[in-house]
């Protein structure tokens, strides 16, 4: 463990990465179990699964880029793109099922007009539900969220790799930090959110504070871990 200016930079990178993950979760249209039954807007699974899925894909693609270069920018970009592809593929295939198998029109119950397409929403919301499917605004929001999650994951992974040089250990540690921040953020939105147009999105400063405290505690121990003596 040698402490120098780089250690502080690594520490800050981990904290920023954790915060990006925490905020990114707020953008992802998570519908939970109701969405799986087409009774709520969003993707039909929980926040943790979605955050973990996009984060791990981001981590994988960042790791792949890291085997080629040491420059942080392409690594972050690859992480973001990997996570975005994963999230978009999930939303796209999910949309096919909602459209062609369930037969539900896509509508958001939280806004009267889709902020992007300006289409009217209330006439299409089935009575007794809180919207169905993944409308355009949710799709765009989800893509932004995935990009933030991917950058966050890569930003945690990169400094860890610089510190301990062991891909397996760095990945596991990054997943640990990722899980903590994603769960804290998903508690903040209490399970479901539609995206940046949802009123619940305004609660993000709470998640910011929570993730800041948690990631600082995790980041301090992350920079203390050393590589194997044999130089793994």
């Amino acid at each position, binding site marked *: *463990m040698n402490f120098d200016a780089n250690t502080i930079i690594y520490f800050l990178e981990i904290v920023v990465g954790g915060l990006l993950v925490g905020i990114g979760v707020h953008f992802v249209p998570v519908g*939970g*179990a109701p969405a799986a039954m087409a009774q709520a807007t969003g993707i039909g699974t*929980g*926040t*943790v*699964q979605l955050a*973990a899925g996009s984060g791990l894909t981001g981590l994988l693609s960042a790791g792949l880029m890291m085997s080629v270069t040491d420059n942080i920018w392409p690594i972050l970009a690859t992480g973001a793109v990997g996570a975005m592809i994963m999230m978009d593929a999930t939303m796209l295939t999910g949309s096919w099922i909602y459209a062609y198998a369930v037969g539900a029109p896509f509508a958001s119950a939280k806004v009267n007009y889709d902020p992007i397409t300006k289409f009217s929403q209330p006439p299409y919301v089935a009575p007794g539900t809180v919207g169905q499917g993944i409308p355009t605004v949710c799709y765009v929001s989800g893509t932004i969220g995935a990009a933030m999650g991917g950058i966050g994951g890569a930003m945690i992974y990169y400094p860890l790799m610089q510190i301990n040089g*062991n891909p*397996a*250990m760095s990945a*596991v*540690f990054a*997943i*640990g*930090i*990722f*899980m*903590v921040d994603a*769960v*804290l953020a*998903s*508690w*903040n939105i*209490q*399970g479901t959110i539609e995206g940046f147009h949802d009123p619940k999105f305004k609660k993000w400063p*709470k*998640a910011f*504070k*929570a993730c800041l*405290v*948690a990631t600082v*505690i*995790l980041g301090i*121990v*992350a920079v*203390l*871990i*050393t590589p*194997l*003596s*044999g130089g*793994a």
Partner: protein
Amino acid sequence: MAEKVKGFKLEPKQLRIYGLVGSVVGIYLAAFLNMATGTNIFAFVGALAALFGVVMGANAVRRVCAYGIGTGVPSIGMLSLGMGVVAVLFGLSIAEQLGIGILGAIIALVYSLIFGYVVGLIANRVMGFNIPVMEEGLTDLSGAGTLAILGWCFAISGSLSYEAIVTDVFNTGFLAIIFICGGLAILHPFNANLGPDEKQDRTLVNGVMVGGMSTIATGVCALMTLGLAAGMVEIVVGFAVWYYFYVWYFRLAKRDASAVVGTGLLPPSAL
């Protein structure tokens, strides 16, 4: 149901002491036995020690989630394992650096308990959960995640040294199996049994049952890292634990059910 089934009711404090002491003592006992005999056949003791932690964690899950956290039970299990994996890596690494490798498990546990308490505090104060047992529950959960990972890591590596665990568990990728199987053992019991008639004994017995299955999984991994003998012992022990607690769980489920009817797929004697 006329059949009398063994049940139990334990206080959270009691369970916490059983979980922490049982698990730590078990892990060190396993490490000591392996060192003293010069074999790795006692790796299964580490897997059994993890079960104590799992029971403590499963109880914490049922206490916290009974209030309703809005995101489903799996999230809290993943949080527990996420905190655990960070704590284990940190504890083992820092102990190695300070030259007190044998205390790694204790350092990991202490760090995880503190971190769990802080996360609980954040959840209540910042997020406004207002769940009275949140701090306590997350402290238990974080500790349980750490002990589960530590115990099953030992079951695969056969040693508590940082280097052995990193080479045998992390670099091989077996940690992913521990992560999910351990998470299942902690989060699944309440997820499967929740509802108005959720009973502590049924939930916890289910937890040990899933823990037995996780032990089988780590045994299969240990076949590769520790060799045939240690791996097979672990698989057999895991199977025994699973079978015993499966039968017990089945009886408890019948005790709590209003009626049990067969579908015809199983012979009537199996019910």
